[in-house]
């Protein structure tokens, strides 16, 4: 390990016994998970299994009800933790893009740099343009989000997150709101990111992406991790019946199934 991160490990995210309740409903029921530096971890599972909640607990968009969440060695569940400082190094990409509609594409990528990281205008724009080029949208810098297709908006959202130069990228079903023909461009950008060594935690329904890009796949159901391991194992040869059942339904949606 070349990093000097505290706790002496290359772990960017460490979840330990993570519990999240909404009222009486326990959505996460004790999750242990590690994401190492440079690793791509894909979280799969049926809707309602708590995947998105898990992701949102990492940058505290949801406040955990129990357990600890270490991000780059900082316990974000500690009330004394400066969560804004942690989030500066953790990019997030949402299912519904959430671009700022009143700002141009370029401004979407500079606003946090300028206002949060206090980067100078010229440098912020240079970084933004570099990241827009990275996602293939350098020529749309002056457009407004409403003028872009869903796939382009999601790529801008990725460039926006990258412009803060994060150590970790969280993806919350980034292609679920896209028309099928636009999914490929977004996945290609994510694949490039993974190839460049970005640490990524990805909640996704794209099994082929998980299979090809992930270092590790985590299958969740009912608020717990059912199975985890290399994609060839979890997706290719699942051990648990629940995993098999889910993959069967996702991979052969039109197939006939037995009752019950």
């Amino acid at each position, binding site marked *: 390990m070349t990093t000097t991160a505290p706790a002496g490990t290359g772990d960017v995210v460490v979840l330990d016994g993570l519990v999240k309740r909404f009222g009486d409903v326990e959505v996460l029921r004790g999750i242990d998970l590690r994401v190492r530096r440079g690793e791509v971890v894909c979280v799969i599972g049926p809707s309602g299994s708590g995947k998105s909640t898990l992701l949102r607990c990492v940058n505290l968009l949801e406040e955990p009800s129990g357990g600890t969440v270490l991000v780059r060695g900082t316990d974000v569940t500690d009330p004394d933790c400066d969560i804004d400082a942690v989030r500066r190094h953790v990019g997030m990409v949402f299912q519904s893009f*959430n671009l700022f509609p009143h700002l141009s594409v370029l401004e979407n990528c500079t606003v946090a740099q300028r206002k949060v990281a206090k980067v100078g205008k010229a440098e912020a724009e240079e970084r933004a343009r570099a990241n827009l080029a990275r996602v293939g949208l350098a020529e749309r810098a002056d457009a407004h989000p409403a003028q872009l297709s869903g796939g382009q908006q999601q790529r801008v959202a990725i460039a926006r997150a990258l412009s803060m130069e994060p150590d970790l990228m969280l993806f919350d079903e980034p292609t679920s709101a896209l028309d099928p023909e636009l999914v490929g461009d977004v996945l290609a950008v994510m694949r490039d990111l993974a190839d460049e060594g970005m640490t990524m935690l990805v909640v996704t329904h794209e099994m082929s992406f998980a299979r090809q890009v992930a270092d590790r796949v985590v299958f969740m159901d009912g608020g717990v991790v059912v199975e985890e391991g290399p994609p060839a194992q979890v997706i290719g040869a699942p051990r648990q019946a629940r995993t098999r059942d889910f993959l069967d339904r996702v991979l052969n949606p039109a197939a006939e199934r037995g009752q019950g």
Partner: protein
Amino acid sequence: MTTTPPPPGRSRSPLLASPRRRAQLFRRVQYVVLVVAVVLLVALSDWGQIRRAFFNTEVAAAQFPDVVTVALANTVLYTVLGFAFGLALGLVLALMRLSSVGPYRWIATLYVEFFRGLPALLVFIAIGNGIPLAFGLSLNRYVVVMLALGLVGAAYISETIRAGIQAVPKGQVEAARSLGMSQTRAMVTIVIPQAFRIILPPLTNELIMLTKDSSLAYLLGSTLLQQELAQFGRQALNQYQSLTPVLVAGLCYLIITVPLGLLVRRLETRTARSR
């Protein structure tokens, strides 16, 4: 019994006609009523009297230029003062209503219910006449107008702003926070600018209301140079014994409010298109 019955689905009597025929008939009746009303009105009116009362050109000419340079200018000034104060206070109240601190919410709610329920006239009386009497203060006339118009306007404006802030999707705040912005920073940089775009049409309507309410300044009494449109019209009415100055003053209000109304409509179509 040799007549053939009408084919099914068709009837002969107009009252039993098909829905479309009935709608057609109803439309014709409405036109007839309108034409009769207009003809009666024209026939029964005393046009000479109306012309002398409303359209006395000499009296109308005598209103200028003061009706514009003094009265219209004062109306605009009073409105701008009241709107500026109302907007600032309204924003504060809206943020208070959305605060996570209970007492702030209660205070703001009380304020809105209080000032929304009072006639603006009463507020003018309280501030213009009541406060100087009670506290022995002599408030500057412009301050009184600004306070009275602004206090009432703020109640409405704050509700509009609150609705606008709540109309900004939650994902916007989440995206901003996920980039490391604080709650305040996200509010100032991301939410409020979007909220103001959403509420520009209703906010312009508030401005129109304030323009009209500025006429209540007549209550404060004024020198000739302080008169706004309504009072200017009333004073000229007494002076010339003619309705014409009132009509001129009214037209001057329309010079302000009609363009604002058109602006609202344009803003609304623009918002509708961008969604």
